[in-house]
């Protein structure tokens, strides 16, 4: 008997795009196919990068860079130097020294323009990241037509939205129709204020920064409702009412989770929270795992992302509260969703993942790059959730918030309050105290999450689905049924 040769003939797939993927090959094959000149340039860049790092390491260890205005690890030094220079300007306006006025306003404008340009830049690339990543999760390519690797796709989307006809539905309230896209962009911009990018680089380092963030995000609830109401459209109104109910319900677990953060760090100031994490070499993600989970999940509800995007579920309610918006108004809603996702990533990074610090690495690498990386990681987790999880129904969402998250969050606050008072009175070294709390918190969270879910009736499917028996292999549907024991 002749042996079958172990040759597998690779069949070319049907669609041109799949053929393109297979012909292009893996990244390793692509790298091997690169021309020699590109490899030389890459090597030069790589060695230059290493030399630059060595130089920076020498300068940092030498200490000659600390606090100078050209210390780009912390742009706050440059702003401070600018402020000192501006204060020496002569002249008076309205009884005030011109120097003082300039020293206040010019850095404020610079910071504001900086935040806006960062947001704008992220909006250009974030949409591309999201669509390519989603496609990658779904084993397809994503946009690859518009520029090299589809990089100009967000720009094309923006141009397309800008040239669309601006429709106002008949019977809609004109003034109230124009307001919501503007109103919803304001909190998305304002909430970036207190976030510290480096030690001296928080634009609006308020004493009540945490509460400010929570209250500013609660302003967008009204904008959402106005969008649905002024559209004169039943689906929009339904979508907006559901969104409002959801956003208002999930504000409470967010506040309670952040309350446990405040109990541990003892301050509402975001830079103090980051400093606590740096001083104790402990990320609050380890110490307060339930708070991290609650904050993250409730934020997906706040910013209307899957699995909580019942508001704008494309397959269910057309587009929810922004159904009737066309052109750049709809573009603003989409942009705000994107910007809010990055904002939530940055907030999670600041509160729970150590902010701009990385156990001392911020002496070498600029803090804003570290925070940017962490925020992008948070954004990646959001995209992962969007690709993987199906959407929750609105009653499932509300049940989850009120019956599951809020009781557990209150219990979490109680537990953290007990722990904080123990930590204030116990004289043991911090590593023992906080190590013990880390272990206790993680164990209790793991137990309480399952136990409370069982207690309120969330049952898991413990039955494994039966292995499918193909009808063709065994002789038909009747044979399959008799094999399984059915009638």
């Amino acid at each position, binding site marked *: 008997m002749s042996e079958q040769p172990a040759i597998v003939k690779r069949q070319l797939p049907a669609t041109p795009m799949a053929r393109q993927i297979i012909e292009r090959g893996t990244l390793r094959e692509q790298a091997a196919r690169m021309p020699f000149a590109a490899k030389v340039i890459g090597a030069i860049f790589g060695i230059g990068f290493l030399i630059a790092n060595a130089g920076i390491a020498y300068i940092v260890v030498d200490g000659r860079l600390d606090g100078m205005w050209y210390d780009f690890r912390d742009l706050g030094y440059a702003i401070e130097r600018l402020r000192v220079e501006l204060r020496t300007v002569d002249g008076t*306006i*309205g*009884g*005030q020294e011109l120097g003082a*006025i300039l020293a*206040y306003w010019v850095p404020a404008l610079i910071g504001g323009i900086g935040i806006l340009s960062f947001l704008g830049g992220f909006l250009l690339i974030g949409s591309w990241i999201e669509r390519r990543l989603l496609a990658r999760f779904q084993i397809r390519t994503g946009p690859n037509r518009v520029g090299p690797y589809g990089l100009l796709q967000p720009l094309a989307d923006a141009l397309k939205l800008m040239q669309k006809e601006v429709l106002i539905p*008949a*019977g*809609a*309230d004109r*003034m*109230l129709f124009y*307001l919501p896209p503007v109103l919803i962009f304001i909190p998305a911009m304002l909430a970036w204020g207190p976030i510290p990018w480096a030690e001296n680089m928080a634009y609006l380092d*308020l*004493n*009540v920064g945490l*509460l*400010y963030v*929570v*209250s*500013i995000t*609660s*302003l967008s*609830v*009204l904008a959402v*409702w*106005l969008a649905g*109401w*002024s559209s*004169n459209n*039943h689906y929009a*109104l339904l979508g907006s*009412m559901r969104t*409002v109910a959801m956003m*208002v319900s999930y*504000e409470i677990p967010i506040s309670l989770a952040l309350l446990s953060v405040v109990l541990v760090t003892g301050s*509402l100031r975001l830079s103090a929270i980051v400093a606590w994490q740096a001083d104790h070499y402990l990320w609050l993600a380890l110490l307060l795992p339930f708070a991290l989970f609650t904050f993250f999940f409730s934020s997906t509800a706040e910013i209307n992302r899957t699995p909580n995007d019942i508001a704008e579920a494309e397959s269910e309610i057309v587009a929810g509260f922004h159904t009737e918006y066309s052109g750049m108004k709809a573009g603003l809603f989409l942009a705000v969703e994107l910007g809010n996702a990055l904002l939530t990533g940055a907030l999670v990074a600041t509160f729970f993942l150590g902010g701009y610090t990385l156990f001392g690495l911020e002496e070498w690498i600029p803090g804003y790059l570290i925070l940017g990386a962490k925020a992008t990681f948070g954004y990646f987790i959001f995209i992962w959730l969007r690709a993987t999880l199906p959407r929750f129904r609105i009653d499932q969402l509300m049940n989850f918030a009120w019956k599951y998250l809020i009781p557990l969050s209150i219990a979490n606050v109680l537990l953290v309050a007990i722990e904080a008072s123990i930590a204030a009175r116990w004289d043991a070294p911090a590593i023992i105290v906080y190590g013990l709390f880390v272990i206790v918190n993680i164990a209790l969270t793991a137990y309480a999450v399952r136990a409370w879910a069982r207690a309120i009736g969330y049952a898991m499917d413990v039955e494994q689905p039966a292995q499918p028996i193909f009808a063709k292999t065994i002789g038909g549907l009747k044979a399959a049924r008799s094999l399984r024991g059915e009638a």
Partner: protein
Amino acid sequence: MDSLGIVVAFYVLSAVTIGAALSVFLLRNLVHAIVLLVLSFLGMAGLFASLSADFIAIAQILIYAGAISVLLVFAVMLTPLSSRNNANSLYVGPGILAGVAIAAIVVFTAIEVDWVQLTGDALRDRSFVDTIETIGDQLLGKHILAFEVASVLLLFALLGAIVLVTDPRGVGTDVTDDADDAPGATEEPA
């Protein structure tokens, strides 16, 4: 409080607040009135911030603009279309008169009385760094009884509101079946 910035801020914020409050009185459309009421809440928050009350300003935004406005909006949705206007009742004359009279009394008192207040350097030297820490110390120290009573009051208000609105027909029946929701439908004239 004599720097140009704070003077300009005060006048702008008071103009916004008073203008928005007047518009709440004068506008015909109830939803427009609610939006302008939220604007007056935000103006008030700005005035609180100009008084160095940072925690109260943020709490004002959170509670009033974030939560009470949503309550008002839900109440507007659950009430019928026919009375969804901001019309004046029969007592509009006495109402305006009472308002003007009270405002006049308070403004006259405010301007004419020689208040014992800090001015200039004494005002600037007064430190307000840790408002939230001081408020917390007071709430859990000197005013602990009022704090506990307020928490019980909130609990009872919450329970009471839920019990009041519970439909006697049972869970699942929709109150909004009776209300008409389209904002463009005809309303009876004021």
